[in-house]
């Protein structure tokens, strides 16, 4: 069953999206166009005051103004950088610790309760802590990003390691594979889909925390630009930046899915979905 692969994160339809026919694609555009029209019409019709929700066209022209400034691009870069570093650190730490903890039953037993204890601690609870540690620098936000996305990866890797076919593991052991070889040939291939699921979830979480951190703490990036626009009363700019953030999220999601599909092309879980 493919359900196995996504037991926790639940299958985010690696399958269906691809099979979408051309009309579906068009419908999607229609949906977006509808949203745009709505945002244009609601303030124009006076349902919401323009200075609180400007029409879409105002947002676009504000966005064009933004795109003409160096500050915007620097902020964009800062955001992407913080996101990428945080995601990389969280993924690396999550995979390594996940394999170690999951691969060694005694360690797993000893840490299980701690992980269950620490995981639900909300990352925003750490904001004061992050500020105390790192002030309003990028590092404060990085701490939040790493903390939040780390669990996504770790938990998935633990699921993945647990899912290793006992027969395959026994086989490997009976052939006296060295530990590293075991990890490489038995553990890793099984855990890979889970790692990718964790990575995908982490990528989304990391971006959200990056922006939240910038917004709340004031570390450099698009989130801070939003805060600045907000505290200057530049409503159209604020919405323009929010749109940018949303678009980045969509792009990140698309890219990560593409990467996932590429990495897992050989994997039965994907192959099965393709044929199903």
């Amino acid at each position: 069953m493919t359900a196995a692969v996504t037991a926790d994160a639940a299958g985010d339809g690696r399958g269906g999206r691809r099979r979408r026919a051309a009309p579906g694609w068009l419908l999607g555009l229609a949906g977006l166009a509808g949203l745009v029209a709505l945002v244009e019409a609601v303030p124009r019709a006076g349902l919401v005051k323009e200075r609180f929700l400007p029409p879409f066209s105002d947002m676009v022209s504000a966005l064009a103004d933004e795109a003409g400034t160096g500050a915007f691009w620097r902020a964009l870069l800062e955001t992407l950088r913080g996101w990428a570093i945080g995601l990389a650190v969280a993924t690396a730490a999550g995979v390594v610790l996940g394999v170690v903890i999951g691969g060694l039953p005694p360690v797993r037993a000893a840490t299980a309760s701690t992980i269950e204890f620490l995981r639900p601690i909300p990352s925003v609870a750490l904001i004061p802590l992050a500020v105390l540690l790192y002030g309003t620098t990028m590092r404060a936000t990085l701490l939040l990003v790493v903390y939040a996305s780390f669990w996504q990866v770790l938990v998935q890797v633990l699921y993945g390691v647990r899912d290793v076919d006992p027969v395959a593991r026994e086989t490997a052991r009976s052939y006296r594979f060295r530990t590293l070889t075991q990890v490489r040939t038995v553990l890793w291939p099984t855990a890979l889909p889970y790692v990718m699921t964790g990575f995908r979830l982490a990528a989304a979480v990391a971006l959200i925390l990056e922006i939240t951190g910038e917004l709340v703490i004031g570390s450099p990036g698009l989130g801070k630009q939003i805060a600045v626009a907000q505290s200057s009363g530049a409503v159209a700019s604020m919405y323009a930046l929010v749109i940018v953030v949303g678009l980045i999220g969509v792009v990140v999601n698309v890219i990560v899915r593409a990467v996932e599909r590429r990495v897992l092309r050989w994997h039965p879980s994907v192959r099965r979905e393709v044929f199903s």
Partner: protein
Amino acid sequence: MTALGLLRRALLLLAMPVVLVAAWWVATAGSTDFFWPPLSTILGTFDDTWFHGRITGDVLPSLGRLAAGYLLALALGVGLGVAIGSVRVLRALLEPVLEFFRAIPSPVLVPILMLFAGIGNGMKILVIVSGCVWPVLLNTVEGVRALDEVLRDTARCYRMRPHSRLVHLVLRGASPQITAGARQALSIGIILMVISEMFAASNGVGFTIIQFQRGFSIPQMWSGIILLGLIGIALSAAFHVVETRVLRWYTGLRRAQREG
């Protein structure tokens, strides 16, 4: 299980947390750093800080909003998810729009939500909904789409009525995914409970912690962070109990499949 085995289990369960807490205690004992008070000081303020009026004044309002927002998000996510998962046209139409909104961090939406919902509890609940609804919605869509073809056919053959098809086939069939989404939503909900109280609040755990931080009442702030952690743990444990009940069939099925 023997007494010894039980002891072993308890030891495994508690050893690491105890060691960590002890490490924290020792490391901060005698700390003079203003922002890192000794753990003993923090715990010393815990009772004074939280158990004299703040449980009903702050903790319960927070939890109430969380519950309202979370349940609303569940209902909305499952309802929309079933509709979108079942109707292909709807899915195609809404997918990009939903992807876009999902990618916008909820804190950014707060000022916008304020325009529509004011600054009262309604706004805070909406903030929680705006973040919690996505994992539930997307997982429900996938769960509904992943429903077994044969099972669907079976339901049709036996002429199950729409209502009972929804209850006994679609919702139950998608329940593993819905639960997974609900679990993610819960942790997001706690985060947003705190974040929503950063804006226009006059009570709540998050509000209080931030007031402590702004007022430089650092041990109290720490006690708040610990309280948040405990709330998170308690809710996660409660969820686990519900999940185990709801998904008992699923765990059994999966085990059977793995062994078979």
